């Protein structure tokens, strides 16, 4: 039975700074909160810092976790309020049905694999040179680094993940407005084209990138550094395939799941009818 947890992180404490700096440290702390052996399950987590002074760690686990060690070392152990909120995740899974709409947030690691990078790094050059048979060479995993490519990476895959991102609800411009700002609207349509999954489809979608980070950290403080480009997407989604979406809610999306990527969370669409 899955559980969703939220833990308050006190950014002034030494351990929290370690967490905020290195996804590896958080991964250790998260797996340490599970009583079963580490190979049993792969917890998903994400550091939400809407308020940088009050970050929250969101974790999805299969078994019921205990976060007292994180609260003790990186929270406010003697403060009032709920240190760690742990809730059964099943009610949400019961809500997943085709046609339903939700707000979502996802921190993911958009990557592409290519056997022939345009400008290979020294390590890649070395591996390319060492390979005997270029046809059998394994591709290199490389991060998407521009916002447009990161957005397209996301939109190209939503169907496989079991949902669709609806077209954005923008009103047509008022009469006489489009002619005046022709250059601006041209620029707008260019960005829209770049942000849609299909290069020929100019429809803007209900999704935006709210945060982009390049994190580097060393394993055990030595050896080559791990580099991860994490991108936070927010928007609206419509369920198309309940089974696929349930699978990806529980198992995560994309690579670097141990390092704070891949946890897709849903929230209700705010009822305040706009306008």
């Amino acid at each position, binding site marked *: 039975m899955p559980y969703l947890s939220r833990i308050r992180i006190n950014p002034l404490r030494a351990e929290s700074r370690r967490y905020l700096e290195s996804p590896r440290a958080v991964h250790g702390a998260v797996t340490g909160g599970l009583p079963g052996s580490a190979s049993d399950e792969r917890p998903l987590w994400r550091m939400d810092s809407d308020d940088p002074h009050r970050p929250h760690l969101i974790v999805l686990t299969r078994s019921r976790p205990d976060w007292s060690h994180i609260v003790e070392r990186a929270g406010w152990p003697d403060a009032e309020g709920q240190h760690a909120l742990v809730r059964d995740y099943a009610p949400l899974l019961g809500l997943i049905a085709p046609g339903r709409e939700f707000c979502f947030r996802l921190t993911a690691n958009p990557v592409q694999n290519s056997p022939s990078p345009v400008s290979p790094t020294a390590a890649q050059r070395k591996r390319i040179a060492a390979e005997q048979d270029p046809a059998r060479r394994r591709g290199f995993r490389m991060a998407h680094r521009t916002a447009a490519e990161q957005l397209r990476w996301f939109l190209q895959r939503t169907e496989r993940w079991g949902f669709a991102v609806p077209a954005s609800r923008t009103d047509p411009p008022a009469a006489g407005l489009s002619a005046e700002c022709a250059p601006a609207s041209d620029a707008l349509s260019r960005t829209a084209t770049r942000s849609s999954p299909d290069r020929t489809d100019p429809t803007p979608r209900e999704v935006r990138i709210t945060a982009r980070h390049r994190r580097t950290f060393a394993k055990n403080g030595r050896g080559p550094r791990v580099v991860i480009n994490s991108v936070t997407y*927010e928007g609206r989604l419509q369920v198309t395939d309940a089974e696929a979406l349930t699978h990806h809610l529980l198992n995560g999306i994309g690579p670097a799941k141990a390092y704070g990527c891949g946890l897709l969370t849903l*929230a209700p669409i*705010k009822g*305040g009818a706009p306008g």
Partner: protein
Amino acid sequence: MSPAASDVPDRAGPGDRAVLVLRLAAPLQSWGAQGAFNVRDTRPEPTKSGVTGLLAAALGLPRGAPLDELLALRMGVRADVPGTLLRDYHAVSDFRGHPLPQAGVSAKGVQKPTAPAKYTHVTSRYYLQDALFVAALEGPPELLNRLVAALRAPHFFLALGRRSCPPTQPLVLGIENGDLESVLRGLPWQASERAKNSYARKLGRRRGLDGPFRPATVPCSVTLEHADGDDVLQDVPLTFDPHDRAFLGRRVRQEWLRVHTGFSDPDAATEIEADQDIHDPFELLGR
């Protein structure tokens, strides 16, 4: 046994339901739902028992009269100005000159007097100050017409939740056609000019502007009676008989509506998405 208000069927056809709109405003209001003994609380918005009591007083129903007809009205409340909470501190003395009894009893089973002698109770009463609500009641038109006549010439004194809270005028905004939601959505913001300007000034300050910011719409919280609502409120009175108080629950749905402010020259940018809540994945997980 009166029916639970949530059992009221939805409107059957266009002509047989109408909506009575009341404006509940006063310097002080108090809508108690759970208060007992020395702490008398207030809910943040009018209760069904409070509004039913107001209507029953206008009609001149005696304390023990059956309330079925009034409870069948479906109620929705919009908080135009939520107001602020006032705690009224009272020290009530016992006029008989004896000290108050303590919890312990003597060998004869009689409560002992407090030692040192204590003569006063402390009671706290809570009020909403400067609040303004729009209460809408959906029901058959002939009953609503009768209620309007009664509210214009009430039989008993009218009060907003407590006898010390008389309403300001106008109390009745009229009878509208349509359903509860659309009436509450369509009615413009009822706040006074002063409250509107104060809101605009605060908004301007929050946005870092030099002057006031006058939005075209303003968010108002709404509580609607709904058969499959998420929340249950225990405020449907079976009777107002003081010796036989009993309440039923009703299901309600809480929502936010964007209501037109009525500023003559609203600023072009609206106050919509700027203050939207952050993403909370726990909202879908129930309580």
